[in-house]
């Protein structure tokens, strides 16, 4: 039986600016940043509250990626069709104010949902995330 998720991938347009966004705006922890002989760059970050989960910030047009595949992913990012997941916070409205003031793009202000308070944010590559304050926290 599978018990835990240790790595997950987010495709990004530029790894330098993605690292800056996730670390300096979203407050993630930089975990691994190493370049291989063939130019492949292994770049991972973690939410500070989940040290055993690494998010791989994968360059869309990295080594061995076929140009047509990279173009397809790039197009999906530009169209806003890729969802990165759900990020959790203890206070969605406060986080929204804080992140907005830092230039993070939101689809709109936080809204009450039956499961909590939610706002939708976009990373600087075009991946959408739900920023959720779950009820009962």
């Amino acid at each position, binding site marked *: 039986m599978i018990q835990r998720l240790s790595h997950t991938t987010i495709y990004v347009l530029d790894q330098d600016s993605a690292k800056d966004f996730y670390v300096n705006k979203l407050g993630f922890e930089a975990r691994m940043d190493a370049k291989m002989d063939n130019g492949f760059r*292994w770049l991972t970050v973690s939410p500070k*509250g989940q040290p055993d989960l690494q998010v791989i910030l994968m360059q869309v047009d990295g080594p061995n*990626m076929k140009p047509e595949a990279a173009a397809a992913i790039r197009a999906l990012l530009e169209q806003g069709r890729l969802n990165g997941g759900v990020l959790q916070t203890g206070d969605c409205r406060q986080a929204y104010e804080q992140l907005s003031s830092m230039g993070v793009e939101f689809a709109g202000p936080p809204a009450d949902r039956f499961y909590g308070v939610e706002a939708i944010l976009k990373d600087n590559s075009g991946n959408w995330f739900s920023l959720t304050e779950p009820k009962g926290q």
Partner: protein
Amino acid sequence: MRPKRPPPSAEVRLFDPATLARLSRARDFLAAHYNERKSLETIANVSDYSPFYFNRLFAQAFDETPHEFVTRLRIDQAKKLLLAGNNSVTDICFDIGYESLGSFSTRFQSLVGLSPAAFRREARRVFGGFGPRWALYYVPHCFAEFFGAR
């Protein structure tokens, strides 16, 4: 800092950004001084919490105690130094802040599954030496294969 067992995940809490910022301030301080001996009081002072309360909040926010956090940073750094260079295990032990080779080796073995020397030997065998290829240790095989990094 006293070692403490990690809290059960049910105890992990979500905090408001202001509280998290205070805790993160201390966490960043700890990361910047990971190879120095710092008392829990000193670290807690950075966040303006009492040591006991800070220790509890830190574990709830970050799913690891301050002691576990600094141990993780030390062992991660030890692995990189063992993979990337030729410094002796003893030098690495002191570089990352341990004051006893025995404590370091025991902790390394319990977290990595190999002694520091065995870890280095195994990495050298698998990755064919040191230098830029050391980072392959961190890349799951399927990713390295897919992206032609091997």
